[in-house]
């Protein structure tokens, strides 16, 4: 349960950051929070108390179904990689944006309006 709360909490914190802040860097951090929150929630779904990691070490573990669900963990691995890629891309765009406009606030621009 604590995992759900933690994950949900992180998600909400990230969301709050995105809702309130206009600074691009902070918004990216907020996005990161949200991602981490979702990842924790996913792991928590697959977790069964008292079971070990789904690594093919000994036959008994598999046979007695002593492992947690491996699929969410695989998903999270993929999601983390994707998250990193997106964050990197976002940061590089922010750098380029800052060079051109000298500001970290998107809403000051009037060109792309309405």
């Amino acid at each position, binding site marked *: 349960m604590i995992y759900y709360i933690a994950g949900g909490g992180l998600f909400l914190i990230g969301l709050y950051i*995105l809702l309130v802040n206009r600074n*691009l860097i902070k*918004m990216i951090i907020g*996005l990161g929070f*949200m*991602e981490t929150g*979702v990842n924790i*929630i*996913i792991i928590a*779904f697959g977790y069964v108390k008292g079971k070990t990691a789904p690594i093919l070490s000994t036959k008994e573990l598999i046979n007695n179904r002593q492992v947690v669900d491996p*699929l*969410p963990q695989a*998903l999270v691995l*993929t*999601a983390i990689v*994707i998250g990193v*890629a*997106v964050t990197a*891309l*976002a940061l590089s*765009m*922010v750098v*380029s*944006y800052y060079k*051109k*406009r000298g500001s970290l606030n*998107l809403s000051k*621009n009037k*060109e*792309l309006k*309405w």
Partner: protein
Amino acid sequence: MVNPVLLIAVPLIGAFLIPLLSAVRLKVLSRYIVFITSSFSLVSAILLFYHVTYTGILSVSIAGFKPPFGINLEVTLLGCIIVVLLSLGVLISSFYNLFIYPSEPEDKFNIALILLLLGGTGISLTGDMFNMFVFLEITSIAAYILSAYKRNGTGEEAGLKYLFIGSIGSLFFLLGVILLYTQAGSLNIARLAQYSASHLNNPVILFSAIMFIVGLGIEAEIFPFNWWVPDVYQAAPDSISSVFAGAISKVGIYAFIRIFITVFNGIPYYEALIYLVLVGSLIAEGAALFQKDIKRLFAYSSLGQIGFIVFAFLLKRADGYSAGIFMLLNHALVKMLIFILIGGIFVALSTTEIEKMKGIGRKSPILGILFTIGILTLAGLPPFSGFYAKLFLLKATFQHNYFIPAIIIIVASLIEAFYLFRLIYIFYSPGHEKKHSFSTASLATGFILIILILGMSIIPFHIKKQYTDKAAKSLFMRSLYIKEVK
């Protein structure tokens, strides 16, 4: 028959080849790789379509694992149509780029374009939910890169907006996937469809449905989630706007309808969604009235049209689906044409402001004719295919006894006519007398698309009967999809 796996593998190989070729100083070749890859995709998708017409839905397991364990591809007729559109869009765009930028598109651009093709193809062919998420992310990241490609400040701004909204959307999508997984214990779309058919009352399923509405709504540019679209279409390079409007939005729609027709068939309040989508189209068409930038104008017009397309799919009737697919085809071709022509105009005038385009229709008659045909098709005037799209849509609407939606569609078409004909007015009104050199690349590309549009206008009933009806039928018969996978 072409193995559908190749449709995903070849673009991937292409994407890897481009930097390699650059490294060995064969950069010249790398520019042709997108062209070759997308041609391959186009041809094989068409072959695949005919194959699927005869055999029914094609299920291909990857690496020998059967569906519940392995990942599989589900080749449906609609999926094939989307892949055809996507590869056509990328082909057109790369063809245009070959001529318009003699030295430019860098490798990054080409790689992103090819990844766009890869991701879109994956979404259209996959039969696995998580796989769809991965392909969605590939498509999105490629799209973020491409929309910010101009690097003039505006590009980054649009790209960042798209990135934030898109990332939130994919997070929602991920949440939806995992919620479904906890209930159904599988990520296979057919399995999920089978499961959810009897468990639509489950609150978790419903909650995941909401997550999907939000997540895929953002990708499919559906009304309350499509704010990023005008910015991105305006700021992206012209050939990329053409791909976005013509193909990527259609891929998003495909994902949306695949999930909502196959998996969540019959969720409550889908009628509310109908009105939401239609009001969204109306607002978007209204917003297009005010635009001073031609690309932004057509972005809003796209949003309006997409609303109609999604509405057709929400009708839950085979003829509605058929109308939707016809409309989708028509809109994709027209928008590709229009954005490519805008590219030509931009090369000549180096502006996208509508007011500065006075008189170019008279200065360059061929461009004027192509653009006018595009606009007339978009406005849904006979004898062009847009008219038939509207006809089929209205017929399906009335057969389903939706009167108010039909009125909304009519009113929206009226608004559309207002801004579209104002464009013709500006194009043909007396303007500056300077001669411009319009790029032949844009015109040549435009000609290809015009031939397709005219073809669609000449044999609309044949296309409806032979292609869209069949695709719609296979989409409508959910049991076919589920059975095939078992």
